[in-house]
């Protein structure tokens, strides 16, 4: 995907926060065209607010990408449900 520049801005100008905001997630997903990704990366290095926004999404992505830990036991949920029903005296 390509970065869409705001129509009144010269193509050679550095990207601004608004333009970055629109493609930030696409950039983080690695789906932004290389030449545009460079522009976004440069902006994120310089702009504190966009950097924070980007960091927040990166943390969410990293947390989601973690695999379920080993030892996750599908039967445990059933055991816990039974335990809960036992507490409630069903």
């Amino acid at each position, binding site marked *: *995907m390509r970065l869409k520049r705001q129509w009144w801005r010269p193509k050679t100008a550095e990207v601004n926060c608004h333009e970055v905001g629109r493609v930030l*997630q*696409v950039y983080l*997903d690695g*789906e932004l065209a290389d030449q545009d990704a460079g522009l976004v990366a440069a902006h994120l290095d310089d702009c504190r607010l966009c*950097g*924070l*926004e980007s*960091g*927040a*999404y990166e*943390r*969410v*992505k990293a*947390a*989601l*990408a*973690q695999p*379920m*830990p080993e*030892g*996750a*036991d599908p039967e*445990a*949920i059933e*055991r*816990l*449900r039974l*335990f*809960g*029903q036992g*507490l*409630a*005296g*069903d």
Partner: protein
Amino acid sequence: MIAKPRHQQRHSAAFGLGGVAHYAAPVAESAPEGVEQRDEAVAKARFDEYVLPEVDVMYRVAMSLTRNSADADAEDLVQDTLLRAFRAIDRFDGRYPRAWLLTILRNAQINRVRRKRPELLRDPDATMDRVADTSDGGRTAEELVVDMGFDAEVESAFLDLSDKLREVVQLVDIEGLSYQETADKIGVPVGTVMSRLHRARKKIKKRLQAAGMGPREAST
């Protein structure tokens, strides 16, 4: 006060109370005779209504919460949480049961970290690498658990998404598919994949902020 209205939760978070205690989960430490005095039929009905449907979410969150501590047992933690929830159910006002339960879960986990690693209280650095793979020192047991809780909160926000939104997050963020592959797999245009992803992640981020776990980078 049990579960605060949403605007008050944000208010608490804004004043830096963090993600652990701002629901002020009522964890009953009372003796069994306190239990006998209440209306057991009502307590059971409320437990059935509010707690039992959340068991699988609680287990998955407990898995995330105990991921980094080698000797923690998610199933045990959920059992503990169920017990505490059952003791406290008559004081729960029925709002945001999942948030209430996850707060109890987190508090139970904090107690465990304290109990199993009392040295954490004296020297957080010494066991840092065993509890969490973070590098900044001098933090308390609560903060360590809050950090582990970040993953748990993301997990629970993910589970809370609608099926359509969860599907794209599952394929792109968890399974690592490209936008095009995701679009092909679920039979929608790439633009739809992108807009769903965007909405889903915004929701997750909003949840984190409401839980006082917004962009923590801001404070460091």
